[in-house]
């Protein structure tokens, strides 16, 4: 996987839940090998938009997606694109760590087995080790790979989920409030991990923490009522945003 393999863009993307429009014609070019933060109040459409990038909205019967999501120039919103293969390429980490009720090893090996990424046990061992190393968890679990994953701490479980996403060779990582259930130390560990991961992956993170968006991202997109209000360098958004709405949100102001 190379940086040129993770070109991601949205063109006029709208999402409807039944008749209600949750996302209004959003266009955006994601910066490769960088972290982009989606911020905005609850119900602004940021998570809905995030789920467009790996077609997670497909699993919601009332949801309808219009417009194009271009991954390396190919629109993923077409029946020809297999969502299972797509989700290997575009990994996702959720708000609450969701390890399978299996061993640490099997959690990581699950995806590579399904996708046939390892022909021998040695290859699979190597994938498990590499993935856990990339997720910064190897040192903590290498001597107990067969232990139940659910016995890990919250922060470790979240890193396990990141390792699980990495194991199938994605180029994009989507993170939906990955630290909202974690204490400040576990959060700092994940944020440091995100910083390291961006060298290999293009990352989009949805967060309600302004501090986290400011700390981890290079680009920030602010959403309000389904509209993309402002998209720019994080440095600029948090020091001198162009829109009053953005400033009011990041500063905790009301009109």
């Amino acid at each position, binding site marked *: 996987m190379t940086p040129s393999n993770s070109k991601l863009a949205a063109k006029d993307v709208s999402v409807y839940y039944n008749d209600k429009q949750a996302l209004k014609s959003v266009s955006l070019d994601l910066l490769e090998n960088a972290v982009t933060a989606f911020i905005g109040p609850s119900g602004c459409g940021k998570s809905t938009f995030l789920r467009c990038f790996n077609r997670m909205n497909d699993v919601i019967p009332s949801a309808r997606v219009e417009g194009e999501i271009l991954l390396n120039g190919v629109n993923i919103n077409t029946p020809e694109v297999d969502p299972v293969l797509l989700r290997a390429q575009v990994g996702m980490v959720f708000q609450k760590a969701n390890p399978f009720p299996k061993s640490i090893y099997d959690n990581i090996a699950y995806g590579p087995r399904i996708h046939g990424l390892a022909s021998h046990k040695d290859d699979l061992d190597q994938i498990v080790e590499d993935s856990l190393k990339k997720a910064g968890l190897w040192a903590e679990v290498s001597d107990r790979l067969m232990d139940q994953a659910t016995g890990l701490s919250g922060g470790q479980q979240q890193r396990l989920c990141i390792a699980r996403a990495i194991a199938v060779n994605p180029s994009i990582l989507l993170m939906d409030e990955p630290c909202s259930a974690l204490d400040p130390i576990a959060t700092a560990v994940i944020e440091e991990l995100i910083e390291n991961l961006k060298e290999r992956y293009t990352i989009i993170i949805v967060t309600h923490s*302004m*501090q986290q968006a*400011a700390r981890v991202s290079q680009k920030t997109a602010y959403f309000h009522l389904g509209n993309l209000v402002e998209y720019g360098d994080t440095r600029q958004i*948090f*020091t*001198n*945003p162009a829109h*009053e709405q953005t*400033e*009011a949100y*990041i*500063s*905790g*102001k*009301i*009109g």
Partner: protein
Amino acid sequence: MQQHISTSFDEDLNELDSMVTTIGGMAQSQLNTVLSVMDNLDEQVLSTIIKNDKQIDRFEQKIFDKAVEIIALRSPHASDLRKVMIAPRIASSIERIGDLARNIAKRLLTLKTNKKSLPFVDEFTAMGQDALSTLITINDAFGRSDVEKALKVWENDIAIDEAYHRLTEIIVKTLDQGGQHDAETMRHCLFIAKNIERIGDHATSIAEQIYFRVHATQIDDNRPKQGDAEASD
């Protein structure tokens, strides 16, 4: 003006602003007082000015502590952050203005102790009143976040610079002619003139902070400067 959802955050920011206005008023009062005794060199008043300067120093520290507290507890962003960051910088400029007023008082007290008077009182008073009026204007511009007013102070600094150069020329000429005043008195005169001129520089620096607070960028500095064509002092 939009308000924060957290009213205590607004209160903190307002308190910080109000502290800056207060320290500005303290320096204003010190300068005003020292100008008022240039003719009679009232020892008691001059001693009080010197003593009062410590209050300004302590208040500057309080403003710094308040800004640190707000950053630590509120994590301000954008215009809030600029508001918090410029407060200690402005306070620092004002503290320096306080020092300059105190330095003038010290020199006037020395003159008085040596049974001398201040030569060129009218010139010094006029130049000092210009500096005082600049200080009053800049404090007002801060209170109102009035960039236009701040820019006027910034542009007018050259007038104080010119007054300084005119006055120093007179002092040096008088010194050259000899006899009228002793060299020690003339040395004090040169320093007092320089101190007043520096007050204008600090007011200019405050104007730049106000501009930054409102526009989030620095003023594009292409003003003609008095010292451009001559050796810097």
